[in-house]
């Protein structure tokens, strides 16, 4: 049986560069799964995500979502961008509302859309700041609005590109908990790119480890056998958590060490 999201023999080359960034990436993701993609900086994680989002064309191979080929961007694959990408001239409410009005106008009337925007702001605990503009709120709050905007589109797949990368450890932990809670509640399929091994192990069902680029591909896939809901404090010393963490660290730092550091 075909998977929910099916990436087959995907290769991506940019014009002007001789070697493809990604080569022959194969990945199958089931509905409701939380998958983390981890790899060294520059290996092509964002590129992979952008192809799934439809923002970049595949050079060879392709991506199927529910059996249909992805040919362009769309609200069924909502993206939370690496740098939040909120529109600075709109308030938080308006940022979410723009996406909702644009994508759900056929299924909801005006009042329902308004309620739906507020519901999503409440989901990320941002109701109080709804009338502020992005430059008046903190980095963590911006990222939460970005998540609310993405969730409000009712996506089939939520694509997170290092959503917490630019945040301090405390804010990051807080948002990770919120995302876990949302995932548990909505059962959305999530692909999350991250640099952070603990984050990958804590949040995901499977961790996809990419080898170094160019010609990066899936090096290994680790299934995280930890039951949900997960509690970061209890897990810290859990043998399976530690084992998963060690496996990923070992992949990243001994078998596929950072090429930039090796050259130095």
């Amino acid at each position, binding site marked *: 049986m075909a998977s929910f999201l099916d990436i087959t023999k995907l290769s991506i080359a940019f014009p002007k560069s001789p070697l493809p960034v990604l080569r022959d990436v194969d990945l199958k993701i089931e509905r409701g799964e939380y998958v983390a993609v981890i790899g060294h900086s520059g290996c092509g994680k964002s590129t992979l995500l952008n192809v799934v989002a439809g923002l970049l064309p595949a050079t060879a191979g392709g991506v199927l979502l529910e059996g249909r080929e992805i040919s362009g961007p769309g609200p069924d*694959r909502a993206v939370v961008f690496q740098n939040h990408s909120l529109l*600075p001239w709109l308030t938080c409410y308006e940022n979410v509302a723009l996406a909702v009005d644009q994508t759900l106008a056929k299924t909801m009337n005006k009042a329902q859309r308004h309620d739906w925007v507020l519901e999503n702001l409440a989901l990320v605990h941002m109701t109080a700041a709804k009338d502020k503009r992005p430059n008046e709120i903190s980095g963590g709050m911006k990222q939460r609005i970005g998540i609310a905007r993405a969730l409000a589109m009712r996506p089939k797949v939520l694509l997170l590109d290092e959503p917490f990368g630019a945040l301090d450890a405390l804010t990051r932990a807080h948002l990770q908990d919120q995302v876990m809670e949302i995932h548990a509640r909505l059962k959305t399929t999530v692909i999350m790119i991250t640099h952070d091994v603990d984050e990958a192990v804590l949040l995901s069902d499977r961790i996809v480890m990419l080898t170094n680029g160019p010609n990066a591909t899936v090096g290994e896939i680790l299934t995280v056998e930890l039951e949900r809901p997960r509690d970061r404090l209890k897990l810290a010393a859990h043998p399976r958590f530690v084992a998963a963490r060690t496996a990923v660290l070992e992949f990243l730092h001994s078998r596929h060490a950072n090429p930039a550091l090796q050259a130095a």
Partner: protein
Amino acid sequence: MNAVSTKPAAAPAVVSRPALAALPKPSRIVPVIAQVVPPLIVLALLGLGWEYLASGPNATLPPPSKVWVDAHDLIVDPFFDHGGLDKGLFWHLLASLQRVALGFTLSAVAGVGLGMLIGSSPFFMRGLDPIFQVLRTVPPLAWLPLSLAAFREAQPSAIFVIFITAIWPIIINTAVGVLNVPQDYRNVAAVIRLRGPMFFWKIVLPAAAPYIFTGLKIGIGLSWLAIIAAEMLIGGVGIGFFIWDAWNSSNLSDIIVALVYVGLVGFMLDKVVALAGRIATRGTQAS
């Protein structure tokens, strides 16, 4: 007892904490004084210098004291209207401003439209940019004869000169603004499938707004420069012709008063567009 200790004494924990003392309000007057006083002093010194230089027997220009006496009526009452061209400066300025308002509005609408077209279409960019780059270097007054020939009337010709003077910086800045819409915003629009006119209205226009207003600000300044020169040639009510008329009747004091007004109005126009820009683009600067 060591009274000299710099360590704060242990806070009397039993006493409930007093309400925080209000911070002293920053004075609003002092910065204003600091802004206003230096120009006033410099202005007074320049006036004195001018008075001194223009008071000699060989002076060709009138000193401020003479300007005051000669042009007293003009200065104290800008609103008189004795019919014909014998009007207060207010009416002349108003006539000039009306021409600028019309010409500039037309060039703002056309300039932003064309700039959007050029900025979003490589074909039009390649096709039109070289033409614009040449045309924009043509001095405003060089358009006047052609414009008079085409329109056969003074009023539309003057407005056309303003239009053609102001439009180039507006087009070019708008196009640059459109080209500089960040890829991030384009990606957001692509994901929510915002396309066509809605994409322009919701994404491109606000993202390019700071550039557009830079173009408008340059454009209004050029319009004001152009109208004074154009009016000198076409005649009728207007501050440009007023200056020309005063020159023909050797009324140097009137010219000086008019120049002060021209400068003040030009300054004000610049500030008005800048203010409109600040209001329209508030929040546009990404954090």
